[in-house]
């Protein structure tokens, strides 16, 4: 090996490439480009596409026909739309029960007993299994003839109730099924949150004589705020996406009384008897506007949070 004389490299800042000069500001964008691109193509663009489509009448096969706002006019006096909207609101309100329920189970499980990990995983189990399975299990549970619910009700002299066949109970019946996995989800969020609770603050509060509900409300819950926020977000999103359970348990029935907007949209636009793309898009736009309220709120809270730090 002979050593070749290497000419000394003199730094020449003027001749550095454009990229080198702007590395710090450009690199993050380079990393972001794929995400931004996909977000634009698969999220932002379809939103505007839906807005556009909702002004047309189209069966997905033939020619599109521009109809202006007539899809929305039809929505305005479509009883099925109001049923779905009402059910969506019921879902939004009742689904939030998963948050306090998850909190209490988390508090209950947040102790050191032999085998606590097994109990925790058992409580978490419903979130792991598929929504389809949850739906099927609850369908059998509610079965008016052979179901466990009616057998139990029969023992105490009540019933029989056909939960999924009665328009008054059906939505509540499905929400109860949905709460089972959702509670488990909130529970796991709070369990991790509880790990981060400052034991010194708890100690200090105890010295000051706080206990029971006061301790929970004024010391523990404020420290769980980040967990509560996430639980709130995922629960709201879960409520608005409630589709699989309805599809499995009732298929929107009886006579369309358990539909929510997302299911109605699917039925109108994509199901066996549907294919009214414009009308489906109009429902999607309404659903989007409802979601937008929550999205705006979430973004605002996160923005505030960031500024605070």
């Amino acid at each position, binding site marked *: 090996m002979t050593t070749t004389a290497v000419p000394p490299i003199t730094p020449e800042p003027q001749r550095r490439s454009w990229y080198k000069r702007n590395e710090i500001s450009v690199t993050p964008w380079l990393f972001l480009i794929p995400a931004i691109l996909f977000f634009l193509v698969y999220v932002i663009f379809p939103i505007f596409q839906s807005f556009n489509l909702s002004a047309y009448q189209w*069966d997905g*096969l033939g020619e599109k026909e521009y109809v202006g706002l007539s899809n929305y006019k039809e929505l305005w006096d479509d009883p099925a739309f109001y049923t779905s909207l009402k059910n969506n609101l019921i879902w939004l309100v009742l689904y939030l029960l998963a948050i306090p329920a998850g909190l209490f189970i988390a508090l209950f499980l947040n102790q050191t007993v032999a085998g606590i990990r097994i109990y925790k995983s058992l409580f978490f189990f419903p979130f792991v299994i598929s929504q389809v399975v949850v739906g099927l299990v609850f369908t059998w549970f509610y079965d008016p003839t052979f179901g466990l619910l009616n057998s139990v009700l029969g023992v105490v002299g009540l019933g029989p109730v056909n939960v*999924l066949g009665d328009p008054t109970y059906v939505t509540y019946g499905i929400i109860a099924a949905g709460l089972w996995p959702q509670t488990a989800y909130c529970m796991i969020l709070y369990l991790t949150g509880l790990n981060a609770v400052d034991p010194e603050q708890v100690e200090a509060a105890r010295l000051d004589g706080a206990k029971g509900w006061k301790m929970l409300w004024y010391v523990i819950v404020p420290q769980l705020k980040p967990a509560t926020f996430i639980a709130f977000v995922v629960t709201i999103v879960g409520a608005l996406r409630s589709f699989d359970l309805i599809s499995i348990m009732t298929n929107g029935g009886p006579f369309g009384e358990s539909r929510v907007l997302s299911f109605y949209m699917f039925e109108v636009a994509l199901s066996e*008897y*549907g294919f009214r793309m414009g009308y489906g898009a109009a429902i999607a736009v309404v659903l989007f506007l409802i979601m937008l309220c929550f999205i705006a709120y979430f973004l605002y809270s996160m923005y505030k949070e960031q500024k605070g730090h």
Partner: protein
Amino acid sequence: MRFTYKASIAALSTVAVVAGGSLSASAQELTGDLKIFLDTSNPAPRATMEKAIAQFGELNPDLNIETTIIDREAYKTQIRNFLTANSPDVANWYAANRMKPYVEAGLFEDVSDLWAEPEIAENLASTKGAMTIDGKQWGVPYTYYQWGIYYRKDIFGELGLSEPTNWEEEKANCAKIVESGRACYAIGSKFLWTAGGWFDYLNLRTNGFDFHMELANGDVSWEDDRVRATFANWRELIDMGGFLENHQSYSWQEALPFMVQGDAASYLIGNFAVAPLREAGLSDDQLDFYQFPAINPDVALAEDAPTDTFHIPSGASNKENAKAFLRFMVSPDIQTQINAGDALGQLPVNAKSAVDDDKFLNEGFTMLSSNSPGGVAQFFDRDFPAEMAKVAMEGLQEFMVRPDNLDAILARLEKARGRIYK
């Protein structure tokens, strides 16, 4: 026409030899590809179709056949994608209004020339109407099946009942069945269409085939007194407690156990229910069939007989091969073979085919060929446009659960009619 099993097998094999010879002679020209999409995903239909396609392949050794079998339910939405984007050469579907959207969008090939061939024109005449839109034919049928009332013969015997032939007898039977603590009719209306079957029959019997078709085509108001008469007849059975309780929570399969266990005495359903009922342990001594009885003696009896079909997508790349395949599938021997009791278990569309020696197939064949003078309807959700069918079947289910809502339901359907048939 009744055939004994042995005789039909013998006839079949001779026909097969003769037809096989002639087909292979003409088939030597078939080369290239043939892409077939099917929705026959249940085990028996799947095996039947694969066998028939294999036979077609044997006759055309140089033909490269590619078969894709798609889940029956998923197929209903996927067909839109593959017809527009990546067409196969043959796809199966359903007759009448169910194929109309694809015909109107120009996605199905006009096969009127096939129907002009004497082989098909003469032997498939009975289903030509269901395949015709705008005076042209858009595919060929390959199977159809009867609807009617399947009942527990042993329960009827125990209660001293006989097959009813008119509405009064039907109601008298039902009253006795209800008295014995059973439901007269099993039904699972969770997926709505079974309620459509009841409406079809009640309306066909109350107002006749022509009126039913006028209603399907949107020419008659849902608030018409004749429609109300149909619902009034229906209501008599509902008020009697004739229908299985909580039927809105069950699919048609989930309602079968009630019939098997003797909690329900009969079931208005298509012939496809026979196989699961037999598998569940009902023997032919326990299970029997009768034609839906006459209600209005002045209207001719008409039946529901849904027809399944083969089509050539207009985007197909091997149309000649596809046509040869269609010819093959409707030929008498293949029709006999694929519709046999151990295959599809349905009725062949070719008049020269043999009906398998099965009690229900024979009864259905006799009923449709000689005792359905009023006409043959497809089925509620195939005769009515899809959108109308959906809204209407939901209303029918609501009526069965809450008969007092009838006025509101009919007003809703009438409004939908105004919007859908423009």
